[in-house]
C-alpha cells in the first residue's frame, strides 16, 4: 500500500493559530475601542455638572453642556429621514423584486448597490448645491440649511441600504406563496400587500432599522446641510430651522478641544450615547431576523 501523503502536524497547528489570532484580535479591537470610549466619556458624568448635561443649552465655551438639543437633533433628522426613505425604499424594493421585468431588474439592482457605496460627502455636495438653495427659495427662508434638508438628504442616503436588504428579504419569499395567492384570483397588488410583504416582514423591518441606523450614524452630509445650530426642536417650524446632530457635534468640535477637558469628555459621552442607540437598533434588527422559525416553516421555505 502506498503511504498516504499527509500534511505535517505542525503546519496544521500553525494555520489554526494564525486564524485564531485574527479572530481574537478583531474582538480585542472592539473591546479596546469600547474601553477607550468609556474611559474618556464616562468621566463627563462627574466632571460636568449633571444639571448642565441634561439642560437644553449647548454652548461649551461658557460651560453649557446640554446634550438634549443634540439628541433631539439626531432623532428629529433620523425620523424625518425615515419618513422619506421608508416609503420610497420599500416601494423601490417591491418594484425591483416583484414588478420589474427581468432586464430592468438586472440594471436596477447593481445601480442600487452602487448608490449604497457612494461617499456621503459627495451627496453632501449635492445637498449644498441643489437641495439647500431649493429649500431657501421654496420656503422663502433666510437659509436653506435646515432640519428638513438634512432629513431629505439622509433619507436619500439610507434608501439604497434599505432597498438592498428589503429586496433580498422579498426574494426569499417562496414563489409558491405568490402562485397560491394568484391562483385564488388575487391581483398582483393584493398579492404583494397581503402575502409577499407579510411573509417578508422580519426582513423588511430589519431593512428599515438598518437604513435608519445608517441615517443616525451619518456625519458629513448632515453637517453640510443642517446649519449646525444646537437648538431644541420646538414645534413643527423646527423642520425649516437649522439643527445639529450628535455626530456633527463630535466631528466639528473634537478638533478644537483640549484633551482631557470637560468639553472633551462630554463629546465622548455623546459618542457613548450614539453607540448605545446604534447597539439597540442592531440588537432589535438581529432578534427580528433570527426570530425562531418553526420546523415546518423551515422545511417549506
Amino acid at each position, binding site marked *: 500500500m502506498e503511504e498516504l501523503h499527509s500534511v505535517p502536524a505542525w503546519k496544521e497547528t500553525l494555520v489554526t493559530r494564525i486564524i485564531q489570532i485574527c479572530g481574537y484580535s478583531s474582538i480585542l479591537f472592539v473591546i479596546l475601542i469600547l474601553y477607550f470610549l468609556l474611559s474618556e466619556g464616562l468621566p463627563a458624568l462627574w466632571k460636568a455638572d449633571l444639571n448642565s448635561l441634561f439642560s437644553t443649552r449647548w454652548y461649551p465655551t461658557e460651560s453649557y453642556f446640554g446634550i438634549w438639543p443634540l439628541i433631539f437633533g439626531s432623532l428629529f433628522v433620523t425620523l424625518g429621514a425615515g419618513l422619506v426613505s421608508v416609503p420610497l425604499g420599500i416601494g423601490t424594493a417591491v418594484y425591483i423584486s416583484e414588478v420589474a421585468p427581468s432586464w430592468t431588474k438586472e440594471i436596477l439592482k447593481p445601480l442600487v448597490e452602487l448608490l449604497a457605496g457612494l461617499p456621503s460627502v459627495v451627496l453632501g455636495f449635492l445637498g449644498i448645491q441643489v437641495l439647500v438653495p431649493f429649500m431657501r427659495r421654496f420656503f422663502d427662508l433666510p437659509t436653506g440649511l435646515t432640519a428638513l434638508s438634512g432629513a431629505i438628504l439622509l433619507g436619500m442616503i439610507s434608501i439604497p441600504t434599505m432597498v438592498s436588504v428589503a429586496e433580498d428579504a422579498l426574494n426569499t419569499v417562496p414563489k*409558491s406563496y405568490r402562485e397560491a395567492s*394568484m391562483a*385564488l384570483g388575487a391581483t398582483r397588488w393584493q398579492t404583494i400587500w397581503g402575502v409577499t410583504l407579510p411573509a417578508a416582514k422580519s426582513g423588511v423591518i430589519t431593512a428599515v432599522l438598518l437604513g435608519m441606523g445608517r441615517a443616525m450614524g451619518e456625519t458629513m452630509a448632515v453637517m453640510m446641510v443642517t446649519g449646525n445650530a444646537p437648538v431644541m426642536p420646538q414645534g413643527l417650524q423646527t423642520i425649516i430651522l437649522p439643527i445639529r446632530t450628535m455626530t456633527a457635534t463630535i466631528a466639528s468640535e473634537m478638533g478644537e478641544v483640549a484633551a482631557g477637558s470637560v468639553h472633551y469628555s462630554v463629546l465622548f459621552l455623546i459618542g457613548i450615547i450614539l453607540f448605545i442607540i446604534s447597539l439597540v437598533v442592531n440588537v432589535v434588527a438581529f432578534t427580528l431576523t433570527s426570530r425562531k422559525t418553526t420546523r415546518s416553516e423551515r422545511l*417549506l421555505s
Partner: protein
Amino acid sequence: MIDHQTQTKPPIISAEDLCIFYGNFRAVKNVDMKIVPNQITAIIGPSGCGKSTVLRSFNRMNDFIPNCHVTGKITFHGHNIYDEDVDPVQVRQKIGMVFQKPNPFPKSIFDNVAWGLKINGMKGDLSEPVEQALKQAALWDEVKDHLKKSGLSLSGGQQQRLCIARALAVKPDIILMDEPCSALDPIATLKIEDLMRELSKDYTIIIVTHNMQQAARASDYTAFFTMDSDRAGVMVEYGETSHIFTNPQDKRTEDYITGRYG
C-alpha cells in the same frame, strides 16, 4: 377518440386545438379536450409530456412564465379565456388551483382561508364562510379548536386540505389539482381522494397525477398524454377511466398503463 357519453353533457370547459409554446419550443400540441361538469378528470402521462402545462393553461397560471404563450382556444362559460378582453384574475376566481407541494401562507389557519374571501371584497364576520370551507375540505374537526395557529403548523396532509379549503372558499366552478398527493403519505393521499369524490358533487375537478392507480381509483375520465417525436406533449387518448384502463384504443396508452413504457 372521445366516446359518446362524454359528448352527451355540455362541457364546462373545453380546449380546442390548444398549443402551448415556451419561446419557440412547442411544448404542447393540438389538444382537444372537453371536460364534463361535476366529474373528476385525470390527466396522466410520463414526465415532461406537458400535463401540468396544460392544467395551468386552464386558469392562465402560465401567464407568469416568461415567454410562454398559447394558441387555440379554451372555452369557459362561452368565452375564450385567452381573449383580449378577459381578465385573468376573474378566470382564476372561477377556476381554482391546488399545487403539488402544500403551500399554505405563513398566516393563521383562519386567515389562510379568509384571504381569498377578503380579496373578493368580502367584509365583516368571515367565520361562517371559513368554517364552511374547512368543513367541505374535511378539515374542520381537526382544526376548529386552534384556528389561530399557523397554517404551517399542520401536517402535510392537513396542509393540503387547508389549501383545498382555501381554494373552495372563493367558490370556484372548477378546481385544478397539480399532483396534489405527490408530497403526501398513502393515508393522507386516500383522504384527499375521498375528499375529491365528495367535492365532485359540487365542483368539477381536473387532476394531474403521476400515479396511475390514483387515476384509476379516483377519476371518472382519464386523458393520457405523451411526448411525440418533436418532444411536444400530445393527447393520445381521452375517455371514461374504466375504458381507458380496461380497453385502451392506442398502443401507447396500453404500454403506459401496463408499465411497459419506455
